[in-house]
């Protein structure tokens, strides 16, 4: 059993490496195929300067050769290269800075969403069609359907501009509170709804009825049987959601001026900063692949019947 699990993990890891390699390859050639370049600006540099820069960063070589060099640097030295736009900065440092903030934000937001969402979902399911269920459903419907830029702006106006309770920019610890709330509302609402519907489904199952008939106590039924089994869809959702949320939300970063990785990613594309595009893509792809793997493994923990093969 354990060796089977190990074999499964190894297989998935190999697959993950292949996926990341594919992402590297596609991204590398697509970015080079897109018109424009890193050294263009409204005020054009002279051809001599552009040529000198291209030679400096090896962009004068054939694209395939550049690709091989890039792969070699990544594999042998984990060297993502220098940024072409922010001269003097290494891609790895830029990503590190951005990811540090985004991950802090994302992890807090995701886990508060999970905690609140599961509780609210369970409460709603257990009090089905009661007033509390209806209130929860109305609120979560609103949060699920409200885009984060509206939610963010709303929070900004109320807490930063009107009440002066919290700062409007995310460069300080206090300033992260509003972006965290904004980020967590959607997944919180979504998890609430997932938990509710899946719990209702589980509560209708035969084994719950059997447990009730055998006189098992209410809390034991809820926590021991119903809640656990109703979390499978939540886990499916949570893994990738965590990956997306910690790899930065452009909208929230924009609204609150949070120095996260989402902005770095988008700007790198606008600037055609090839090494930074590659670096951020690789990091994001890796995170998503790993999170997916973890959530698959968690199924097994929650429901031993699931066959990973």
């Amino acid at each position, binding site marked *: 059993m354990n060796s089977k699990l190990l074999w499964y993990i190894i297989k998935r890891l190999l697959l993950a490496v292949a996926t990341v390699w594919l992402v590297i390859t596609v991204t590398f050639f697509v970015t080079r195929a897109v018109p424009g370049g890193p050294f263009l600006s409204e005020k054009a*540099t002279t051809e001599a300067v552009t040529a000198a820069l291209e030679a400096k960063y090896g962009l004068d070589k054939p694209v395939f050769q550049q690709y091989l060099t890039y792969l070699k640097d990544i594999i042998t030295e984990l060297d993502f290269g220098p940024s072409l*736009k922010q*001269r*003097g900065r290494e891609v790895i440092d*830029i990503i590190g800075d951005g990811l540090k903030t985004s991950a802090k934000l994302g992890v807090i937001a995701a886990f508060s969403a999970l905690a609140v969402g599961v509780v609210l979902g369970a409460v709603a399911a257990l009090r089905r069609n009661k007033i509390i269920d209806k209130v929860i459903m109305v609120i979560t419907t609103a949060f699920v359907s409200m885009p984060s830029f509206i939610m963010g702006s709303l929070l900004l106006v109320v807490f930063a*501009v009107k009440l002066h309770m919290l700062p409007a920019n995310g*460069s300080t610890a206090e300033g992260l509170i509003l972006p965290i709330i904004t980020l967590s509302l959607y997944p919180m609402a979504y998890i609430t709804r997932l938990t509710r519907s899946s719990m209702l489904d589980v509560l209708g199952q035969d084994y719950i009825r059997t447990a009730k008939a055998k006189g098992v106590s209410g809390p034991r039924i809820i926590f021991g049987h119903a809640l656990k089994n109703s979390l499978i869809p939540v886990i499916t959702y949570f893994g990738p959601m965590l990956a997306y949320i910690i790899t930065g939300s452009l909208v929230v970063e924009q609204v609150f001026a949070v120095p*996260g990785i989402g902005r770095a990613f988008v700007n790198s594309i606008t*600037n055609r900063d090839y090494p930074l595009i590659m670096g951020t893509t690789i990091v994001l792809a890796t995170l998503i692949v790993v999170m997916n793997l973890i959530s698959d493994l*968690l199924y097994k923990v929650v429901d031993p019947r699931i066959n990973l093969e």
Partner: protein
Amino acid sequence: MKKFLALLLALAMVFCLAACSGGDDTGDANSDNNTTGNEDNGNGDENTGSATGTSSINVSIASEPDTIDPALNSAVDGATMVSHLFAGLAKWAQDENGNLEIVADCATELPEGVVNDDGTVTYTYTLKDGLTWSDGEPLTAQDFVFAWNRAASTELAADYGYMFEVVDGYADIWATDDAGNYVNPDATLNAVAVDDTTIEVTLANAVAYWNELLAFPTYFPVREDVVADESWATDPSTYVSNGAYELTGWEHNSVITLTKNENYHDADAVTMNEINFYLSDDANNMLTNFENGDWLLIDTVPTNEIETLQTEYPDEFFIEGQIGTYYISWNINVNLLPSDSTLTGVEAEEANDDIRNALSLLLDRNYICEEIGQAGQQPASSFVAMGMTDADGSQFYENAGHSDDYIGYFDVSADAYESNYEQAIATLQQYYDYDESTGTFTNVPTITYLYNTDESNQAIAEYVQSAWSAVGINVQLENQEWNTFLNTRKNGDYTVARNGWLADYNDPISFLDMWTTASGNNDTQFGKGDHASIAMYDLDLTPYGYEVNVTDGTWAETYDVLISTIKSCTDDEARYAMMHLAEDMLMTSGCITPIYFYTDIYMLDSSVHGFFANPLGYKYFMYCTIEG
């Protein structure tokens, strides 16, 4: 229950993993420094927000600068920061009346140059006594010479390296053979450190704006051992400067903190102890922080809020002139004549010139400025921007064109729009079929207008489309993402495109030398492709003492010659007259359709005193105080 605990445990592991992956990537000691800086700034926030008379100011002029290496920077926001951090031989300052002037900074004075026998001009500067870097090391003449050679070098390949074009020796540095190899790898600028405090620099010829160049960031000194580390300008611990401030914090994409440099030679005059440059690229967020009282100056406001803000904050909303022009550029090689036209060569080119100029007259610039721009932009009827001075000290744009009745190449006043319109229709009737009953032209080829994705560009594009469609011209709008757009426009794969230019120094040549055949900014493709062989331009420079008199020459034989003559001309009057001549050529071609002269909008809290900005858009906070 046990299994539920196991589940919680598993989730906790995911949490750790995610947290570690964040931590791992940052990894080094820097991240700790950054965090500390972050908290400090948090405290700073509160202080400036409410307290009065503090000497710390929070401002936001732009997002993360690409670089704050004085030689590499080519952005206005970067230049603002670099101007606080470094001191060159000269600087921008305000006199008692609030007028801007260039004064000596590290130099004791700014002497006149001595003209040598070969026409070159040598300037000798003496540094003030006892100048030091922010780390206490002495600042010497050699540092200046080193910095200049570095900025002009092929190894650095800086965007603004060409700012040294005027210095003797620059051309040798960049000379290449046919294979593109540099022929003089050891060439340097003709600048010498005679001793520790004396710099001798020789210019290829007299340059009217030389003192202004000395105050330009690219000319600021850097120290050889400091810049040996390529990443020196990205971290406070390695950043050594010589100006009013030193870099004490840089939380990337978040805030840059400058603290007064006690080693600066004029430190006593600096009243602001600390400047926090908050880095934001979102105008709405900037505005929220300004309204909040956290940030005392913001350099961008949301376009759609401009009108409201002007009435809401009459004392805090500022519109300043900026030396720049928003214009539409035409690709000279795209033929606008109807498909059955028999005109070719020079005749076709002349017809196209007429057509482009007529289409320009159909645009109501007052409408664009008042209804779309809404930020005090000035309707433009010439290309060289408002704010550029002429030989006699008057405004260059006021002397442009050849009419006694109006300024520029056509009458841009609101009253003249109707007659402009009639004139345009009359011109277009010569080339196209006109349907009198509907007042439209029936056989104008479809024109595609290219612009980069942006609200105000789009609004202007839509206006242009409606103005031309009104006379039956089918206009298609094409918007491209910024970098793609630049590429398309540069390569000349367009018919007509949105364009804009901001000057780097106060001399009209910075608007004119970009249109030479080989210039990287020659978006109109003058002298390229089919236009290379069009011989229809006249150039007579004999009145100015040059033996140049070309009739029916190509663009290269006329415009390129004119620009190089202007660049080597030392007689101001002739030089400016020739620059008007160059603008005449540009405007006759119709390839440049000026729309408006740019303005710089910013909001400044009324508690801030002593703030000023220069015409290039650099903002100065060192002499600010916060009161009330």
